[in-house]
């Protein structure tokens, strides 16, 4: 299988101490950089834990399953926020991944070369728009439109599903998910495009040689080859979606409530911390907010770990298929 031979492997040259010195120092420098990153995460986790000890001690695991969030009587529970974070991120993924991958496919497989660069530039611009701008646009443009047209249409056509029932206010879990979808679209698209670009042309040519149509080439040769990378793109998008704060806060309705309907307002972990941290005065209140941060960090790590595992099994499956 190996085609490249390493030329200097048979005759090792004894390195002089002079030539080893930069090698070594670079090795240590790189190690230091890597350890700094790991240390940073550990430090963040530790600080969050330290800041939330009071609340952890007071509520224990109940904090994770209780739905009550009452700063006046100092009773705190995180469940509606965990629910809101996961659901809004899931909505965002369901919208952004197909859209992003389709865009990436169009850009790599179909678009005329002249069109590619302008489209890529526009997508990258989308990534440069600050969160709060998306939020303002969400309040004044997107949400009214969703409320008056899209949500009504959804209710009329799919109203038999519990997902699309109840009164339509505008600010809602679905609006939050859609805003996040727009925000993670650039990263999903860019990463997918890089992955698709890395699919060797040999694959495509082989499929064409077997008499495959354009669609079949994309399906068999390109997507199945790039499946793992596309999954990775989705995971990156999910990571951003979980932590998205400003824009979500502005359109999600900020109501700590668990509702089956996507038209109902929701609340996310990041939003409540951003909203309430500045005016929190009691110790337990502050500790509870810190614990929300800790929960968010834990969810992010957990989701990433699960994604890694899935990635591995996916890789195994793809490998088996190739043989």
């Amino acid at each position, binding site marked *: 299988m190996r085609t490249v031979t390493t030329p200097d492997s048979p005759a090792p040259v004894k390195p002089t101490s002079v030539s080893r010195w930069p090698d070594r120092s670079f090795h240590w420098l790189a190690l230091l950089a890597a350890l700094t990153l790991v240390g940073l995460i550990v430090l963040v986790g530790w600080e969050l834990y330290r800041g939330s000890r009071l609340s952890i001690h007071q509520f224990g695991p109940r904090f994770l399953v209780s739905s009550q969030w009452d700063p006046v009587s100092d009773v705190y529970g995180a469940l509606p926020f965990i629910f809101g974070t996961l659901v809004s991120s899931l909505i965002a993924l369901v919208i952004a991944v197909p859209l992003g991958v389709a865009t990436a496919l169009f850009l790599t497989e179909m678009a005329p070369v002249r069109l590619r660069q302008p489209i890529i530039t526009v997508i990258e611009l989308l990534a440069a728009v600050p969160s709060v701008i998306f939020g303002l646009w969400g309040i004044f443009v997107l949400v009214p439109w969703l409320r008056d047209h899209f949500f009504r249409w959804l209710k009329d056509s799919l109203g038999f599903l519990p997902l699309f029932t109840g009164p339509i206010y505008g600010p809602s879990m679905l609006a939050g998910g859609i805003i996040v979808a727009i925000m993670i679209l650039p990263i999903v698209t860019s990463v997918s495009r890089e992955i698709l670009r890395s699919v060797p042309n040999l694959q495509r040519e082989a499929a064409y040689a077997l008499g495959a149509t354009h669609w079949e080439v994309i399906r068999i040769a390109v997507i199945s080859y790039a499946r793992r990378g596309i999954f990775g793109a989705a995971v990156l998008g999910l990571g951003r979606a979980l932590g998205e704060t400003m824009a979500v806060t502005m359109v999600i309705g900020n109501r700590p409530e668990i509702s089956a309907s996507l038209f109902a307002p929701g609340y996310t972990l990041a939003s409540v911390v951003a909203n309430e941290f500045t005016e929190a005065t*009691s110790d337990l209140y502050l500790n509870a907010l810190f614990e929300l941060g800790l929960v968010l960090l834990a969810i992010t790590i957990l989701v990433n770990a699960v994604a890694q595992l899935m990635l591995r099994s996916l890789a195994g499956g793809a490998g088996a298929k190739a043989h």
Partner: protein
Amino acid sequence: MKKALITLLFAAALAASASAQMLINGAGATFPQVIYAKWFDQYTKVDSSVRFNYQGIGSGGGQKQILSETVDFGASDGPMSDANLAKAPRALWHIPTVAGAVVVSYNLPGDLKIRLDGPTLAGIYLGKITRWDDLAISGQNPGVALPAQDIIVVHRSDGSGTSYIFTDYLSKVSPAWKTLVGKGTAVNWPAGLGGKGNAGVAGQIRQLSGAIGYIELAYARQNKLPYADLKNASGNYVTPTIDSVVAALASATIPDDFRFSMVNSPGENAYPIAGVTWLLVYQQQKDSAKGEKLVAFLKWAYTDGQKMAAALDYAPLPDAVQARVLARVNEIKY
């Protein structure tokens, strides 16, 4: 050599002149930020040797920072709790500066002007009164064509002094609100949508027909939003204005530590949903030079500074209260 010496001297002179201008740091409440900025700016014309640096990081942050003495003064929209005050290393004083009103704004078809009383407002926010044509509302508004529409309740989602004043008022006028919800910068809202900041609440009111929400008077005036007249403790419906807030302040009972609530004030023309904002200052200043400058500034703020309030939609303190606060400022030691 000579050149180097001159450069050195020049640098030293620069450093000396920079340190001659004293910097006094403060942090806290965002509601009074506009007038504080104005004060600090104007005060440089009175005394150019001092400069103020104020950061509107929120009342929670203001209380925390003055307790740990990382700032020279704190600021808060709500009075400090006894528990927090007990953490202070020595006597920490509340000094009221200006007052503001919270208005109830709404979105109804037509150019309607409505009137509400406290229990009705509490009923709406408790989710008990859900329609605009409910008898509780129409009974107070004879001749007003209230629509047969659902009420959409909007509240602040971020912790804020505005929410504190509003829930303080509802707790005063409604026993049910007091036991079920209570007062605070953030509470467990029984109904409605949350909007971030005055802008977030106002934005949702503007867009949702049938919405009701509460915002700062200054914000409502500057953005030309409609707001309701509210029934006060002496039974009159009062329009929120600077004057009716001053009237509320004048008739409020103010204890010696200045930690008071002025909602539902008994005055005849008093607007009921209003509150003051405070500076938090240690009785014994740590740095005597800074303390002297701070006291001089406060004296100025309670004389010339108060005159700037109304133009910025804040209510100045009535003369009697100003005199009391000034007497307290004079007791600050440095």
